[in-house]
Each structure stands twice: as structure tokens, then as C-alpha cells.
């Protein structure tokens, strides 16, 4: 009779969410479909120079980097919100949330489990979207790949912390699809501005050194730490 600890129970819940997603396919698939459709739309609408050089006609390299980084993160932002809105769907359809609230696991564990599942979803979307961007817009990430992955992870942590918390708030109201973006978008602006700016630098040839020196990098870390911890702390008051 050895009872699993906090971490093991949390992972158990995340595994449960992933297993359900594997069978229901109603969260990740819409996120991917949305990202794909938006990216195609962007590829069609951007005035490109044609042939192999898919750079935007008449724009400097830094402008192209800015535009593409912005598009990348806006696509992630909305794809994420589409998926996160469904975070508590499986818990609510058959009242499993009540059963879960009575289990000997702290609410913060429940939050971490949900946030971890959302993190995996958004990472999968990015694993799909980043190569797609490289392919369609002939991005040259090259040496900037490792720092870029770090930026992506840091943005995701803040995004998922706030997104999961506000998804739990939205799930308690009558119109969760509507209220989630209304609450989450203003709060998420710093992470996404930071993400877009750092990504643009890296696309334009930045390195680890320039990344760490950028003021945005500090913003990203501050956001992740402050809002991540607060979100985990206040979550217990949302579910009651």
C-alpha cells in the first residue's frame, strides 16, 4: 500500500488527460488544423518575391523577421486559446471534477497536471508550426535554433500558466469560449511581445549572447516566475 506522492499523482492526471486526448482527439486536432489554415493563409497573402526567395517583396531582412515572428506567435496564441478553452471539458461532462476534488491531492497538483497537459499540446503545435514556417517562408534558423527553442519554452510556460488558470475561471461561467480570450489576452501581452521580439532577433541572426542580454529575456523570466507561482496558488479558489 505505498501511495504515490504529489509528483506521481500529478503525472498520473496528466497521463490521463493525454490518454483521453489520444482517444477523443478533440483538443490537439483543432489546434493543429487552425495553425495550419492560418499559416497557409499567411503564405498566400504575403507578397513574396517568388521562386526560391520567399522573402517579402521590398522589405529588409529585419522587417521580414519581425513580421514572421509576429505571425508565428499570434498563430500560437490563438491556437493555444482554442485548445485551452477545452481544458476542463472532460472534467465537466460527467462531473469528474467533483470526484477529483475529493481525492487526496492538493489543488495545485491538479493545476500542474492540467498545465502540463496544455504545455504538451502547445509544444506539439509548435513542433508542427516551426518546420512549416521554415519550409513556407524559407526561414534560416540555423545557429539560432537552440536559443529559439529556449524562447519558445519560456513563452509557453507563461502562456500555459495564465491560460490554464483563466480556462478554469472561464469553465465556471456560462460562456467559456467567449470569456477566455477576454481575460487572457491582456494578461498575456507581455509574454507574447517578448516572445515575438526575441524570436525576430534570432531569426535575423541573433545568438545566445544577444538573447540573454536582451531586456525582453528578463521580462519573460519574470512573467513565468511571478504569474506561474501565483496561478498555482490561486487556482484552489477557482475550484470550490
Amino acid at each position: 500500500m505505498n501511495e504515490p506522492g504529489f509528483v506521481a499523482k500529478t503525472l498520473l492526471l496528466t497521463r490521463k488527460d493525454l490518454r483521453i486526448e489520444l482517444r477523443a482527439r478533440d483538443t490537439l486536432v483543432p489546434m493543429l488544423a487552425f495553425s495550419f489554415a492560418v499559416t497557409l493563409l499567411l503564405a498566400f497573402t504575403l507578397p513574396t518575391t517568388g521562386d526560391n526567395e520567399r522573402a517579402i517583396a521590398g522589405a529588409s531582412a529585419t522587417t521580414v523577421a519581425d513580421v514572421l515572428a509576429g505571425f508565428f506567435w499570434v498563430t500560437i496564441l490563438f491556437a493555444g486559446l482554442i485548445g485551452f478553452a477545452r481544458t476542463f471539458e472532460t472534467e465537466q461532462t460527467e462531473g469528474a471534477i467533483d470526484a477529483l476534488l475529493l481525492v487526496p491531492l492538493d489543488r495545485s497538483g491538479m493545476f500542474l497536471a492540467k498545465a502540463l497537459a496544455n504545455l504538451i499540446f502547445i509544444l506539439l503545435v509548435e513542433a508542427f508550426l516551426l518546420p512549416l514556417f521554415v519550409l513556407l517562408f524559407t526561414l534560416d534558423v540555423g545557429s539560432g535554433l537552440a536559443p529559439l527553442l529556449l524562447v519558445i519554452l519560456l513563452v509557453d510556460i507563461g502562456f500555459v500558466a495564465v491560460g490554464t488558470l483563466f480556462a478554469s475561471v472561464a469553465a465556471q461561467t456560462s460562456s467559456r469560449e467567449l470569456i477566455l480570450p477576454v481575460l487572457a489576452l491582456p494578461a498575456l501581452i507581455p509574454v507574447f511581445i517578448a516572445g515575438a521580439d526575441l524570436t525576430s532577433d534570432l531569426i535575423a541572426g541573433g545568438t545566445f549572447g544577444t538573447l540573454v542580454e536582451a531586456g525582453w529575456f528578463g521580462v519573460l523570466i519574470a512573467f513565468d516566475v511571478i504569474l506561474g507561482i501565483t496561478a498555482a496558488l490561486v487556482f484552489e479558489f477557482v475550484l470550490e
Partner: protein
Amino acid sequence: MATSPTTRRSRNLKLLGSAAWGLLALSLIFIFFVAREADDYPGGGPLQRIFYFHVPSAWVAYLAFAVVFISSIAYLRTSERRWDLLAHGAAEIGVLFTSLVLITGPIWARPAWGTWWQWDARLTSTLILWLTYLGYLFLRSLTRDPARSGRLAAVVGIIGFLDVPIVHFSVRWWRTLHPSGPTPADPTRSSGLGGPELLAFFTALVAFTLLFAWLLATRVRIGRLEDEVDRLEIEAERPDRGPASGIPVST
């Protein structure tokens, strides 16, 4: 003659209101008839007087959102209704004064900067603040159960306020146009504004703060009265079944 706490409270409220409005009238006199115009830079002249409204509005807005933050924490800790009423009222007033900031700012910026809006640190963070608390009020309007609405809103109130400094720092890396002192002429550094101007400014600041306190107290009072109406209506619909209810089951 003994006065009940209720009448004493409503008298204090009236007193606060008179003080706020009186001081506001006084500050108008100072602003328009005592303070001189700082007219030796763009945005000076008569236009500059807008700052006596703009800055106190911003101050009240931040004060209001700080009240939301503190009341939200207190509400989550205690579940006492009064904290929720305070948070709700402060959020409404905060949104109102943020709107005033966002209206008066561009009116000044258009002639001074030649543009209505700039994606500058203060402007952007103020706009985000406004959006955050509009969302807060929208959320409150969606849930009818007061306890639930209070809890959810408190969570948003806490996260929203913690976001403010981060937003502020994050937008500082844009080139900022916004004057950083309390006034374009910055009375603490240059001698552009002297005693009369400072008098007008601080009178306005105190008047706005009192106005905030009065509005908040009034809003909380209205909230209490609404609760009382709800309670009476429930009481009226409730079947009257005497004082005793239920008999303990024992086995």
C-alpha cells in the same frame, strides 16, 4: 438625541462627498485662475492645463486597482462579502478613471506630439490595464451567484494587478515619448512650474482622491442595499415554517 450607526454612516458619507466636491471646485479655481500656463514647449499653453486632470485620474486609477488587488486577496482569505463589494466598486471606478486618462491623454498628445496615440510604455500599459479590468467587470456580469462571481473575479483581480509592472517594464523597451515627471515641465527639476502650479496640482490630486473615496463608499453602500433587497425578496418567497426545523436522527 442618539443616532444609529446607519444615520451616522450616511452623514459621514455626505460629509466626505461635500469635501470632495468642494475641493474639486477649489482646484478648478486654482487650475484656471491661479496656475500660469507653461507655454515655452510643445503641448504648452492652455492645453497644458489638461495635465491637472490627466495625472490625478491616472493616480486614482492605479489607486483603485491596488484596492481591487488588496480586497481580492482579503476576499479569498476571508470570504467576507464586504471585501468583494469593495473590490467590485474599486474596479468600476478604476475603469472609469482609466477611461478618463485614455481620453484626456490623446487630446493633449494630438497637438503636442502630432499624433493621437503612440505605442509607448505608459500608454500601452494603461490601455492593457483598462482591457484587463473591463474583462474583470465582464466576468462579474456573467455569473449570478455572488460567492462564485466574487471568487472568480478575485483571481482575475490578483493576476491582472501582478501583470501591471511586468507590462510596464516590457513596454519600456520601446522608445518612450511620454513625459516621465508629473508634468511636461517637470516642476521637481525645472522651474517651469512654480508654487501656484504645484498648489493647483496638489489640490486637484487631493480632490480626486477624496472623490475616489466618496464614490467607492457610495458604491459599497449601494451594493449593501442591493444585497438587502435580495435578502428581503428571498425572505418573502420563503415558506414560513416557524422556528424549529428538523429533528435530529439518532440510531
